């Protein structure tokens, strides 16, 4: 059975939802930079690169190494929150349009 399909057909993107070809589709998995930045934030948040002396100074009750980790954790929250809101748009436009029509 194989071989009867053209190369073009194999490469077709089925970005068709509900019969409407969508524009502005954003999917996080498609952008490698999203995941590279995430890994950098995660790796920097784990304290494996500190010398033993990095306990001092104590900042807001956290030793230096933990304080850096806290900062990276807040960055992580912000980053993930940003990604959810701005880098994810697949069926939203279509759904909201239909929603508007129903109302």
């Amino acid at each position, binding site marked *: 059975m194989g071989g009867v399909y053209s190369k073009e057909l194999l490469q077709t993107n089925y970005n068709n939802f509900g019969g409407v070809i969508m524009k502005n589709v954003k999917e996080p998995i498609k952008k490698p930079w999203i995941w590279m930045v995430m890994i950098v934030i995660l790796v920097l948040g784990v304290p494996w690169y500190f010398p033993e002396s990095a306990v001092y100074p104590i900042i807001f009750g956290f030793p230096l190494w933990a304080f850096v980790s806290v900062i990276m954790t807040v960055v992580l*929250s912000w980053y993930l929150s940003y990604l959810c809101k701005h880098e994810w748009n697949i069926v*939203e436009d279509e759904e909201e349009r239909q929603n508007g029509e129903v109302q």
Partner: protein
Amino acid sequence: MNDLTFSGWSGVTILLVYALLMLGVGVWSYLSDKKSGTNIQETMSGYYLAGKNLGLVALFFTLYATQYSGNTVVGYAASGYRMGYAWWMSVPYMIIIIGGYLLFAPRLYALAKRHEFLTPTDWLEHRFNSKAVSLLATFFMVWGLGNYLLEQLVAIGQGVQGLTAGTIPYQYAVIFFVIVMVVYEWLGGMKAVAFTDVIQGISLLVGLAVMLIGGFVLTGGHFGEVANYIATNAPEKIAVPPMKVNNQWFSMLILVGVGAAVYPHAIQRIYSAKSERILKKSLSRMAWMPLVTTGVVFAIGIISIQIFPGLDKMGSEQLVGLFANKVAGLGGFYYFMMLLLFGGIVAAVISTADSVLLSLQSMVSQDIYGRYINPGAPDTKKIKVGKIVGLIVIAFLIYIAWNPPGTLFEIFVLKFEILIQIAPAFMLGLYWKRLSKWPVFIGMLSGGALAGIMTWTGHKTIAGWYGGVIGLVLNITICVIGSYLVSMGAEEQIKNQKATAL
């Protein structure tokens, strides 16, 4: 959690209030359904996914209350106390779950709406069309969820017994709250579960906030002095963590980030969202919640190092009780809020248990009964079978909780380690059309077996790396190499591409 200043009958009262509230939500869900004709009881998606119509408040809180159990509070404070500052890891690893969702939820949501998925196995069936993959995944999920439920039942018993200082014994507590849970769940399905989660989530958040404020009052408001105290008296708890702990930290990020996102009940919450916009908003808010949940619990553990020095392992498990007791001793307002918190902790356990139970029932209804035993059955019959089997499972788990088997107890411990093994079928299967069924099956089986053997033989980690993560790496390797080795015809590739296309 003995000898609390607020334990006894005031504890009993607050628990009764919570129980009545939850039952009230169940009755409300039932009546509002009858009135609006949304057919919660008549259709599978109505009962198990709230008609795929959860709005922002309900979806956010059901994600929240399901993810954070009472164990998160009680157990994590003890870990913070014992481990010190390195326990901060519990905050990023709860946050990265949202990163785990971003790996698959956007596409899965769209596909679930179009193809009307009800359970995680519906997706696997849709993508791989393989009895072997579907059955193995269902088996792993039912097993993992069953053990998870068992853990929650034990936690309900211990929590209530502690809160009421033994006024309500362990067994009665479990039976009472299981009945409450089953009643509201039978009445309102996912809708009742989600709306009770709103109450449960809010009480947990408020209670934790007051506990933290109380902690600051107890230490005189100087968190910095706590650090100095620890540096002098318990320097190992503030030192830069050794490599083994850092490896453990990173492997927890992977284990929890991937594992908790593919929890069956987490996946079903993706299916239940009313719209993509609401799902996105809920998850973007969830990304901040660990800071005010596990972050606060971490702070309580740290502060306790100064307030309750020298607790051993058993003693540290009582930490939240001791701490709440001290905070309650500050006076009327604090007393009342700690009472709410303890009700909230019990409620948080129940809110996790009910989600797990509902998910388990849905798999029985859809993936076992509906797919293999009686495919032609009407939805009402499938729901009924799910409810009854759910009851039998609970009865069995209660029996286990009261009579823990002397041997093979470890099979009741495996949760995360095996649940995480379904992740490649989702995360790779959604995007890679070459991924084929046999490598997925063998990968899942080998990963689960390796993680299981490591747990059973007492090797939970190797150099800080968890068995679940090592099993997952093996699983992914088999999936990838196996799929390259298996030849796949153009026709099948097109079929797979269509199955996953947006």
